[in-house]
């Protein structure tokens, strides 16, 4: 199999994730989009691993790490969202503009 379709798919996933970050109004949806991006990166790593025939399986190992980190990040992120919700009673990302000028 050629490697290119996979790469293009990963790129597409990445840009879809970007679109989601920029467009979604709910904080949780944004986090969801971030997961998409991470996922795209995972695909890239595994594809390269397969392409290179790495004896050390570095791509896969790194993918595991990314998944782990993503999990941790989601945990923290949702904790923050919870706090935000407690304070503002809303999950609308437009409401959280306290760093405004």
């Amino acid at each position, binding site marked *: 199999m050629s490697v290119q379709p996979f790469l293009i798919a990963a790129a597409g996933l990445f840009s879809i994730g*970007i679109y989601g*970050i*920029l*467009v979604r109004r709910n904080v949780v949806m*944004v986090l969801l989009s971030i997961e998409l991006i991470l996922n795209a990166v995972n695909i890239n790593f595994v594809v390269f691993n397969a392409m290179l025939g790495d004896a050390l399986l570095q791509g896969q190992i790194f993918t595991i790490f990314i998944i782990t980190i993503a999990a941790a990040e989601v945990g923290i992120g949702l904790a923050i969202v919870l706090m935000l919700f407690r304070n503002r009673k809303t999950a609308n*990302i*437009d409401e*959280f*503009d*306290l*760093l*405004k*000028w």
Partner: protein
Amino acid sequence: MVNINSISFLAEGKATYTDGGAVAEYTWLIVVLPFLAALLITFFGKFLPLKGAEIALATIGFIFTFSSYLLYLNITEGVASEFFINVGSIGSFDLEFGWVVDGLSIMMYFVVGTVASLVFIYATNYMQGEVRYTFFFTSLTLFAGSMLVLVSSPTLLQLLIGWELVGVCSYLLIGHYWEKKENSSAAMKAFITNKIADVGLMIGIIVLALSTGTMRISEILYQSTHDYQSLKSVAYLAGVLLFIGAMGKSAQFPLHVWLPDAMAGPTPVSALMHAATMVTAGVYLLARMFPFYQGMASQALDVVLLFGVITLFAAGLIAIVQDDLKKVLAYSTVSQLGYMVAAIGSGAYTAALFHLWTHAFFKALLFLGAGSVIHAVHSNSMKEMGGLRKEMPRTYTTFILGTIALAGLPPLAGFFSKDEILASLNHGGYSAYFAIAVAGAFITAFYMTRAVVLTFFGDYRGNGHPHESDSMMTTPLIVLAGFAITAGWVNIPGIYTGFTDWVTTRKNPIVEYHPESFDYFALSSGLLAGLAGIGLAYYVYQVLGKPEDGDEKIKVEPVWNILENKYYLDDFYFKYIINPTKSTLSNIVDRFNTNILDRAVNMFGTAATFLGNIVYEKFDQGGIDKALNVSSSSTDALGARVKLLQTGKAQQYIMYFLSGVIVISLLILLVL
């Protein structure tokens, strides 16, 4: 710089005189020192124990010693030299200052030194407790310096400077008690009257300078005795003009009006300036220029003689009706100055100077004595005096001596000098003037005796407790009385005429008549007139009853009124000269000043303000400030716009970031 004059005409005149040697070279000290001393007194006088008087006394003491030594030199050897310092030139005229050391100047130095020393000592006590004590001594010292500048001047320019300086000091001193309006008015009157006369002096100096081409007095005199045509044509005019100047300073009729009013000043001032020194400046000028008058301007001498005689008579008459003791003495001074001027007018150089010499001493004595009386009685008016010979014996004695000297009784000083003047008038053939002068002697004796009786005889009419003044005031009186007695013995015709030798020791010779012996006609006329005056006055005022009633007995109403109003001369001046000047001339000048001069100045100010405003608004505010403001406000506006980028919305931030990434990666991909 300094050059000792050695023009060949030294050989003329008296054969035996020297140039005075080193002492003469240093005579400038006595001219310059008073000015230095005045400066010192101004700045340090207040801190000294005697409040500056000690500096003045030291200075005048030095002057006295120096001038005495110069006199001694003149008596023994004869001194005649002059020194010049060239300070530049205007056109063809050299500006020179310097000092003269010859017989005439030495005599003047001695008179100034002696009388001023005694007056200074007297004033130290008399002015004790008065206002501006230190400034008084500054002015007195300045005056001494100015008078010495005047009498030591070898050029007409320096003479004029000294003349004006003396006028200024007179103004300062007369107006010492300027808190009262009449005192400051009197000072103003003195100054302005002198100034009017000075116009004549200045024009005369200009005429002389232009026609002779020099300002040096000795050269002008040389030209006058050697028949220089350019000078001869203007000689009469110059002579009269110079005399007009002398009229102001020496209080000749009709410019005498300032002298009686000048009695508003303190008595030591009157004694020094208006008896012995300042008023004699006019006589000094005539004496200094005598070769000129003799040689070329002898018609001018007729004018001089006329005014002198008028003055001596008219002033004497007014003195009779005065109630103020100092005013009597003031008019007496005017009258005696008339005698001196008349003497010059009749060609008697020595007689005039001799009378100046003796008059200085006994008039100063009389003034200081009057000061002593006034100090004790606290009033100038003779109506509040009387019977003071018991309480003030020393003042009384010295005053009597002064009176006798003034009246001209032998062997006191006034006798010899007045006699010489009468003799000269007689010799010159001026019989009418001679008669008037003799009448003047009668009047002099009369009013002086009247004054003495009203002051010292009878009963005390005042309210206070008069007592004798202390020794610092009476000692000068005694010394001056000594001079009043002996000063006349230096020029006794036929026996000892040392004074004549002294004052004729000059570079330019003096041509005059020197009597070999007494002119007995003149002598007896004068003596009789004097005795008659004394006798009549004593009879009227003392013998006939109370002194204060004496006036009634001799009063002839219309004449008395004219005399009391001073011949209405002051009223005439006010009505026809002062008031028109004050109203019209002053108004014109004032309007010129306000409208033209002030307006010009204001216009400058307005223009400057206007220009300044423009610069401020356009350049500073509009230009520089605006640039600054614009830069700051534009930065502000830019910032206000840019800050809008920071919305606080994370999605937008990500948007910007990604846009940047896209742009950069495009750049890299396409360009590189």
